[in-house]
């Protein structure tokens, strides 16, 4: 009880919780769920973009894409490490992913069908991710906040690179390239708006998350901020956002936008998106087919450990 009071007071003061500090079980569980979900999103997110590494159209773009996907692996590492500070091992977290128990961001259940999808993921998906993640840099759990600061810096870089790759095609490309970019934006726009999660009035976890300083800004606020920022960027690019209801609302000082198809959102969350099966299958296959490698590494380390004393 005293511990809980001190914890609450700390949170209320805007203080940070470190791994060694006492914390309520629920807080710990919520964080493990959220951080691991985020970590899973990073490693599943390597798949749709990785799909284009072998086909990148120039060596510069290939290098940028490789570096980006590598960064995502790195984000996965930090985040698993942050989750491990809360007492759950990476193997346990991965087991939950592979069994389908743990979730990852639904956006990665959409396929990358053209090269323009790679740039669009950088621009829109990473853009939305940053909106979601910047507030987490002030999250009450310090190891998570520290990981997010580094991640957000890299994500911003990725977003600019994605935007730049689309800009080159829209400004200097052929008609076929421009059409490819527009098509990609058409396919990714609505799923990106869904990335902020259900509307606030249907989002049960928001209040507690806010209370604990894990979540700092509501889904709808973040979504609006994303729309407002993106409309301007779309103008610079010269692409049309596929929403006839999109228009400036002088009164609100924001862009109004159309109704999101939440049936689609829940379909994808519940496993029926275009690539859910394949994404999970790819992760499970990598894990299972890699088992012999991990076992061999352990066996070799054991042999080495046994040899040391003899040699000594």
């Amino acid at each position, binding site marked *: 009880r005293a511990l809980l009071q001190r914890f609450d007071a700390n949170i209320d003061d805007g203080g940070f919780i470190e791994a060694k500090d006492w914390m309520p079980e629920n807080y710990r569980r919520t964080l493990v769920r959220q951080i691991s979900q985020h970590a899973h999103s990073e490693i599943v997110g390597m798949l749709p973009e990785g799909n284009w590494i072998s*086909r990148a*159209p*120039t060596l510069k773009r290939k290098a940028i894409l490789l570096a980006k996907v590598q960064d995502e692996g790195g984000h996965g590492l930090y985040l698993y490490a942050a989750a491990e500070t809360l007492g759950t091992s990476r193997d346990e977290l991965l087991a939950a992913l592979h069994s389908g128990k743990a979730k990852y961001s639904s956006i990665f259940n959409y396929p990358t069908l053209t090269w323009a999808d790679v740039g669009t993921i950088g621009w829109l998906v990473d853009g939305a991710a940053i909106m979601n993640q910047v507030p987490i840099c002030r999250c009450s759990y310090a190891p998570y906040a520290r990981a997010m600061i580094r991640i957000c810096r890299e994500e911003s870089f990725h977003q600019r690179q994605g935007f730049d790759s689309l800009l*080159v095609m829209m400004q200097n490309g052929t008609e076929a390239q421009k059409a490819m970019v527009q098509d990609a934006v058409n396919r990714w726009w609505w799923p990106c708006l869904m990335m902020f999660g259900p509307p606030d009035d249907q989002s049960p976890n928001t209040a507690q998350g806010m209370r604990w300083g894990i979540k700092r800004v509501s889904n709808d606020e973040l979504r609006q901020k994303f729309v407002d920022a993106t409309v301007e960027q779309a103008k610079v690019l010269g692409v049309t956002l596929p929403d006839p209801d999109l228009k400036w609302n002088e009164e609100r000082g924001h862009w109004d936008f159309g109704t999101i198809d939440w049936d689609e959102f829940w379909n994808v969350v519940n496993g029926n998106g275009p690539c859910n099966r394949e994404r999970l299958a790819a992760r499970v296959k990598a894990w299972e087919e890699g088992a012999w*490698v991990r076992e*061999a590494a352990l066996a*070799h380390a054991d042999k080495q450990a046994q040899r040391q004393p003899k040699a000594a």
Partner: protein
Amino acid sequence: MQASIQLQRDPRQQYLLRIGDTCLILAQRLGEWTGHAPVLEEDIALANMALDLLGQARAVLTLAGSAQGLDEDQLAFLREERDYFNPTLVELPNGDGRPGDFALTVLRNLFVSTLLRHLWVRLHDSSDEELSAIAAKAVKEASYHQQHAADWVLRLGDGTDESHRRMQAALEKLWPYVAELFEDDAVDEQAAADGLGPRWAELRANWHAEVAPLLQEATLQPPPDKSFMSTGKRGVHSEHMGYILAEMQHLQRAYPGGAW
């Protein structure tokens, strides 16, 4: 109009393309692992090596094309298969299906990074200043790649029965393609005469001096040498190369005049 470019068949250019294409094609193969490696750390390490190799490829291809006014992308994406000069070893698939066999991947990395490290060391003394500068940077990367690969070869060769069996199978598959690395010809002759770089044959002894004891420590046994000789360095590749190129070149070929 994305027809293929024509090369001049110049020994200097071919010498450089052998190096650049070795890096380029191995980067392509390593990139296939991204997202599919046995542990996350290896996803990152393999992508990182692919990135280093790609950087080396870009520098060397740029140099190789400069005399003829060709840029790195024209060379990377718009040649016919006969005009790629990497040794066959680097174009072999990672294994059946994708992403393939981790044993074969780390063993090939050992073979190629050992070759490249010794090559970069010698190229540091090249009469071509630009090539010398590229080599100065690349040698550090190759050392890291070699160390990483050696660690894995040791771990997997002397790990479990299964990992040993897989490594030995990979060794039997790859070993026949090693001889080509050190085959001598007029291209190397000319490069040596011009001080551009060493004959690759001169690297053979050092290569074996490093690889042989490592294989032994890893309890792996190379198969007996045969008369088989692959010929990728002369532009006569295996049947795998065409599939790599069809995939790698697709966007450049399908969007003529595109800006990327």
